[in-house]
C-alpha cells in the first residue's frame, strides 16, 4: 500500500491473544457481587463515602487475579476472558430474573454457572430496597416514572439500573504523579481543611475515601507483581520468564509511582482503565486523547534508544486486545439497545492542542495501525479532523475505514469546539476535547457529562397528537385537541411541540431523580480523584465535584417526523387529497397492512390472553386465526384497506423526503430537531450544570421502533425508526453528497451532546490511493459544512447476508452499529436486517 504512513508489521503474539480472547462465550462471574455485599454488611455504621472506599478496597484485596498467556500488559477483572462482574449496589432483580435465559437470549448472551447463580442468590436478598435503582425510583415524580416505565416515552434505563460511566479521567496526571502523588494531594487538602468549615464532614469523608481507594489500587498492583514473580519462577521458557519478571517489576512501580518508560506508562494506563470499571458498572469509560498523554513517554524512550517502533506498536496492540477483555452484562432490553457487548471505550487521535496547533504525532498513526492489527470492537477509535489535520493521517484513517470494521469515527473540531464553548467551556479546554462513549464531546479530566442520559423517541409525542395525549387508555400527556378539527398545518406542528415539551419536562425529572440517587448511594471516590476539581472542592463527581457538569439526553426520529409532518402538510392541507380523519384511520390500521415479526406474535398473545379471560377456549386453531388476522389485516374492510394502502403510496411516491438536499425539506428537519434540542437546553441538573441535547439513538432506533405504531411518513408499525440524524432507511436516493448536505443543514452545534451520521459504502469507492483521497475529501467537505460526526460501514451487502446465513464463518466480522462497532453475528436478527437495509451509497 503506497504512501500510507506507519505500516508496521503485526507481531505473532497479537493473533494469539485475540484467538484466546474469543475461544468461548463470555461468562458472568460472582466474586465482585459477593465481595461488595460482604463489605456493605460490615460497614453499615459508616457514612456512604467511606462505605464505598471500604467496599472498593475489599474487592481489590480479594477478587481473583489472572495473568493470561502471552500477555505483556496485565490486569483482568475476571478469570475467564471477556467475562463480566456484577454490581448489585446499582440493581440486581433483572439479572436474577434472567438467570435461566441470559445464556440463550438473542442479544449479547452470557454463560452463567450454577455456582455463580447460587452465590449471587445468597448475596442478593441483602440489597432489597437498598439499591441505587430503588432510590431513583422513589425520587421520581409518579408521572415521570409512568411515562418511562409503563409508556416508554423515554428511557433513562441505563443510569436507572447501572453506573454512569461516561467519563474521561485525567490519565496524564496519574502517569505523571502516580497514585502516591494523588494521595499526597488529597492529604494536603485534608491537612488544610478548616475544622470550622460547614462542609468539613463531607470533605473529610471524601478525601479520606480517596486516599483509601488509591491505597487499595496500589496493593492490587502489588498482587499482580507477586503473581508475575511466582509465574516467572515456574516458567521454563526463558523468553517468557524474562517477560514475566519485567511485568513484576512494572507492577511494583506503577501505578503507585510516576511512569518512567513507555512500557510502564502502558501498564499504568491499563490499571486506571480497568479499575474504573471495577469500581462502578458505568460503561463508556473513555481513554480519550491517548496519543497525547502517552506521547512524552514514547518520545523519551525513542530518543534514548530504549525502545523500537515495533516494540512500542506491540505494546499498543496489547492494550487494544485488553480493551476487549472487559465486558458488561445488561438487562435484555438494554442489551437490544446497546447490542454487541458494547463497552464504548472511546479513544481519539489527532486534532488541535490547547494552543490551537495540530497535535498529530507518531502515536496518532500507531493507534490507527493498532486498530488494523486488532480488528475488534474496542477501542471505539475516533479521529479529530480540522483544517490543519495532515492529509497523511486522514489517508491512514481512510485505509482503516476500508477494512470494514466501521472504525474510526470522524469528528469535526471546527464545529465541536465552538459548540461546547457555547456551553461555558473555555477556549483552551474546548480545544482539548475528547469523545465519550458513542459520539459525546467533553473536555476530559474536568467534566461530569452524564452523556447518554436517556433515549427520547421523538415519534411518540407526535403519536400522542393523534390520540390527544392518551396512551394505552390513560391520559399521560396534555390534551392538544382533536387533530381532525385542526385547520392549519401550523396547529398540528404546535400540538407536536406541546406534547414533546411536556415529556421533556418529565424526562428532566426522571434524570434528576436518578442523578440524586447516584450522589446519595453510589458516589465514586476513586473515579472522582482523577477529575478536577473534586479534590479541591472535597466533593465526589456525583455530588458536583467536576468543573463542567452536564446532562445529555439524546433524541431521535428526526427523519420520520420530518417526512411524516411534511406528508400531512402536503396531502391534508396543501393538496387536500386526504382528510385528516382518513390519515388518522390509515395510521391506526397500519396503512392496511398487517403487523409482522415479533410484534405480530406479541399482539397475538395479548389478544389470546384477553379472550381467555373472557372464558373462550384457546386452541391452536384460534391462535392461528388471530395470528392471520394480525399479519394479514383481515379485520379491515377491503375498500378501506385499499384506500389506506393508497395513502401510504401517496406518501411514499409524491411527498418529498429528508436526505435529498432539498432546501425546504432540510430546513423543516432543522426545525424538528430544534424543537427537541432547544427545549432540552432550558433545564438544569442537581450538579449545578445544564441539560444539553444529543441527536443519536445508539441502536435503540430498532427496539424503540418496535414500540412505536405506524408513523405519518408511511413507516409501518413496530419497524425500526430512522437511525441517527440521517435520512430514513432507503429514502435518500441522490448519493452521499446530497445526504451529507441535507444532514449538514441541521443546527448540529446546538446538539452539543453529540450527533451521529452513519454512511454505508461499497468497498470499491475506496479502492486505490485515489479512492482514499476522494473519500477524505468527502469527509472534509461534509465538515466544511459544519457536520459534527460521520462514520462508515464499508462492507458488501453480500458479505452481510452470508454472515447471517453462516455466522460460524464470521465470528469476528465487525460492523459499525451506531456510535460504536460490534460483532455482526452477536447482534439480534432485526438489527442485522436494519444494517443490511441501510442505504448503500452507489455510484
Amino acid at each position, binding site marked *: 500500500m503506497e504512501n500510507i504512513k506507519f505500516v508496521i508489521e503485526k507481531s505473532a503474539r497479537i493473533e494469539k491473544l485475540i484467538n484466546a480472547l474469543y475461544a468461548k462465550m463470555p461468562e458472568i462471574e460472582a466474586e465482585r457481587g459477593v465481595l461488595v455485599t460482604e463489605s456493605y454488611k460490615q460497614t453499615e455504621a459508616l457514612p456512604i463515602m467511606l462505605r464505598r472506599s471500604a467496599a472498593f478496597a475489599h474487592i481489590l484485596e480479594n477478587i481473583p487475579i489472572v495473568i493470561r498467556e502471552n500477555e505483556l500488559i496485565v490486569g483482568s477483572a475476571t478469570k475467564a476472558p471477556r467475562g463480566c462482574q456484577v454490581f448489585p449496589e446499582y440493581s440486581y432483580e433483572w439479572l436474577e430474573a434472567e438467570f435461566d435465559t441470559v445464556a440463550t437470549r438473542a442479544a449479547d448472551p452470557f454463560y452463567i454457572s450454577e455456582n455463580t447463580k447460587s452465590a449471587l442468590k445468597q448475596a442478593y436478598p441483602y440489597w432489597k430496597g437498598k439499591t441505587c435503582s430503588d432510590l431513583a425510583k422513589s425520587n421520581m415524580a409518579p408521572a415521570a416514572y409512568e411515562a418511562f416505565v409503563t409508556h416508554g416515552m423515554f428511557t433513562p434505563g441505563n443510569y436507572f439500573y447501572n453506573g454512569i460511566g461516561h467519563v474521561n479521567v485525567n490519565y496524564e496526571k496519574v502517569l505523571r504523579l502516580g497514585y502516591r502523588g494523588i494521595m499526597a494531594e488529597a492529604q494536603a487538602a485534608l491537612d488544610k481543611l478548616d475544622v470550622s468549615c460547614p462542609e468539613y464532614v463531607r470533605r473529610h469523608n471524601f478525601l479520606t475515601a480517596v486516599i483509601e481507594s488509591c491505597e487499595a489500587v496500589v496493593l492490587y498492583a502489588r498482587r499482580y507483581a507477586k503473581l508475575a514473580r511466582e509465574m516467572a519462577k515456574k516458567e521454563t521458557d526463558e523468553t517468557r520468564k524474562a517477560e514475566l519478571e519485567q511485568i513484576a517489576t512494572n507492577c511494583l512501580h506503577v501505578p503507585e509511582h510516576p511512569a518512567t518508560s513507555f512500557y510502564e506508562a502502558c501498564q499504568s494506563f491499563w490499571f486506571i482503565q480497568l479499575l474504573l470499571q471495577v469500581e462502578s458498572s458505568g460503561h463508556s469509560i473513555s481513554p480519550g486523547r491517548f496519543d497525547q498523554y502517552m506521547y512524552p513517554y514514547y518520545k523519551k524512550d525513542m530518543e534514548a534508544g530504549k525502545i523500537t517502533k515495533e516494540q512500542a506498536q506491540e505494546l499498543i496492540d496489547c492494550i487494544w486486545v485488553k480493551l476487549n477483555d472487559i465486558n458488561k452484562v445488561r438487562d435484555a432490553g438494554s442489551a437490544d439497545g446497546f447490542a454487541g457487548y458494547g463497552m464504548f471505550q472511546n479513544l481519539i487521535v489527532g486534532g488541535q492542542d490547547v494552543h490551537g496547533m495540530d497535535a498529530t504525532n507518531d502515536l496518532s498513526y500507531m493507534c490507527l495501525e493498532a486498530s488494523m492489527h486488532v480488528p475488534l470492537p474496542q477501542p471505539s477509535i475516533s479521529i479529530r479532523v480540522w483544517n490543519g489535520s495532515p492529509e497523511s493521517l486522514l489517508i491512514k484513517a481512510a485505509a482503516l475505514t476500508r477494512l470494514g470494521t466501521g472504525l474510526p469515527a470522524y469528528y469535526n473540531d471546527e464545529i465541536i469546539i465552538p459548540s461546547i464553548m457555547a456551553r461555558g467551556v473555555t477556549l483552551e479546554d474546548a480545544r482539548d476535547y475528547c469523545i465519550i462513549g458513542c459520539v459525546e464531546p467533553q473536555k476530559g479530566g474536568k467534566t461530569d457529562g452524564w452523556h447518554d442520559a436517556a433515549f427520547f423517541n421523538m415519534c411518540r409525542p407526535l403519536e400522542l397528537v393523534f390520540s390527544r395525549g392518551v396512551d394505552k387508555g390513560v391520559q399521560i400527556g396534555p390534551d392538544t385537541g382533536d387533530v381532525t378539527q385542526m385547520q392549519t398545518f401550523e396547529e398540528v406542528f404546535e400540538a407536536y411541540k406541546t406534547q414533546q415539551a411536556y415529556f421533556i419536562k418529565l424526562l428532566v425529572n426522571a434524570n434528576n431523580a436518578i442523578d440524586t440517587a447516584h450522589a446519595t448511594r453510589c458516589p465514586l471516590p476513586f473515579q472522582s480523584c482523577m477529575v478536577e476539581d473534586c479534590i479541591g472542592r472535597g466533593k465526589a463527581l456525583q455530588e458536583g465535584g467536576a468543573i463542567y457538569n452536564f446532562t445529555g439526553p439524546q433524541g431521535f426520529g428526526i427523519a420520520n417526523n420530518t417526512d411524516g409532518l411534511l406528508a400531512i402538510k402536503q396531502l391534508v392541507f396543501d393538496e387536500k387529497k386526504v382528510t385528516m380523519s382518513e390519515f388518522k384511520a390509515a395510521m391506526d390500521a397500519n396503512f392496511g397492512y398487517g403487523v409482522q415479526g415479533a410484534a405480530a406474535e406479541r399482539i397475538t398473545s395479548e389478544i389470546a390472553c384477553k379472550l381467555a379471560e373472557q372464558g373462550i377456549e384457546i386452541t391452536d386453531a384460534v391462535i392461528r386465526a388471530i395470528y392471520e388476522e394480525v399479519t394479514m389485516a383481515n379485520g379491515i374492510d377491503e375498500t378501506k384497506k385499499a384506500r389506506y394502502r393508497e395513502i401510504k403510496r401517496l406518501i411514499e411516491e409524491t411527498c418529498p423526503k429528508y436526505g435529498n*438536499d432539498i432546501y425546504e425539506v432540510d430546513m423543516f428537519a432543522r426545525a424538528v430537531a430544534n424543537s427537541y434540542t432547544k427545549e432540552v437546553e432550558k433545564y438544569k441538573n442537581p450538579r449545578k450544570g445544564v441539560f444539553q441535547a444529543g441527536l443519536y439513538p445508539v441502536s435503540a432506533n430498532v427496539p424503540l421502533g418496535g414500540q412505536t405504531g405506524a408513523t405519518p411518513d408511511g413507516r409501518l408499525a413496530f419497524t425500526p425508526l430512522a437511525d441517527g440524524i440521517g435520512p430514513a432507511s432507503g429514502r435518500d436516493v*441522490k*448519493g*452521499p*453528497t*446530497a445526504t451529507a*448536505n441535507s444532514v449538514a443543514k441541521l443546527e448540529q452545534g446546538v446538539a452539543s451532546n453529540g450527533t451521529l451520521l452513519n454512511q454505508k459504502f461499497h468497498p470499491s*469507492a475506496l479502492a486505490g490511493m*485515489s*479512492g482514499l*483521497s*476522494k473519500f477524505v*475529501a*468527502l469527509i*472534509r*467537505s461534509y465538515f*466544511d*459544512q459544519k457536520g459534527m460526526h460521520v462514520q462508515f460501514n464499508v462492507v458488501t451487502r453480500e458479505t452481510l447476508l452470508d454472515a447471517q446465513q453462516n455466522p460460524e464463518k464470521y465470528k469476528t466480522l465487525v460492523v459499525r452499529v451506531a456510535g460504536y462497532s460490534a460483532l455482526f453475528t452477536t447482534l439480534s436478527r432485526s438489527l442485522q436486517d436494519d444494517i443490511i437495509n441501510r442505504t448503500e*451509497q452507489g*455510484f
Partner: protein
Amino acid sequence: MNIYETKGRIFNIQRFSIHDGPGIRTIVFFKGCYMRCAWCCNPESQSYEIETMIEDGKAKTVGKDVTVGELMPEILADQTYYRRSGGGVTLSGGEILGQADFARDLLCACKEAGLHTAVESTANAPFEAIEKILPYLDLYLMDIKHMDSAKHKEFTTAGNERILENAKRIAKSGVELIIRTPVVPGFNDTAAEIKAISKFASTLKGVKEHHLLPYHRLGQDKYDGLGRKYSLKCIEPPPKEKMEYLLSVAEESGLKCQIGG
C-alpha cells in the same frame, strides 16, 4: 441571448461520481447520440426523443428539457466537494456534441462559477461543434474505440475517420486530452488492437494518458426496459488478468495507462 436560458435535453444527473475525471464530480448526461455502439450501457441515451423505459416494473420517463439556469443549482450544490477533491463537472451522454450550443453555454456557466470542466465524448461531429466548447473546457475525455474503420463501423454504426482527425485537432488546441478505450471482448480485446490505439494516442500532441475501461453488463436490463434487443448477450466482461495484460501492452506506447476511469 443569456446563456442561462439556453435549453437542452438531458436524461440524468449523477452526483458523487468518482470515475469520470479528477476528484468528486457531478455528471450531466445529454440525450441523443450519433452512434449505436453494440455494448452501450446507456441505451436510453441514444435517441434524442423523450422515451418511456420500464425500470423495476415501473414506467419511467427518460429525458427532460432544462435550461442552463435550471441545472446550475444542482451542480453547485456539491461545490464544496469539488473544491476539496479537485473535482468538478463532467458532461457526458449520449454525445454532447449533438447539443453543442447547450454544452457550450453550460460549460461557460460552470467556468463562471469557477468549476473544473470535463466532457466525455467520442468527437464524432463536425469540428465546428467542438470548437464551440473548447474555450470553456479543462479536460476532454475522448473515446477511441478502434483504429480499423470497417470494424469500427460494424460495431458502432460509424467509421472512425472523422474521430481520428478531430483527435489531432483537439490535441493541437492545447486542452488537456485523455484517450479512453472501452475494452469489449470480440471487438477490440486483442493485444494488436489495443496497441494500435495506444500508439496512435501517443502521437497526439500533449496526450499523456490512455485509460482502458473494461466492458460491463450493467446496462443490459435497460434494453429490456426499452423493449430493445441487447446484441452482446453472451459476452462476459474481460477477466482481470486479461485487462492487466492489455494494460502492459498499452504501456509500451510510453503513455501513463490505467484500468478504469
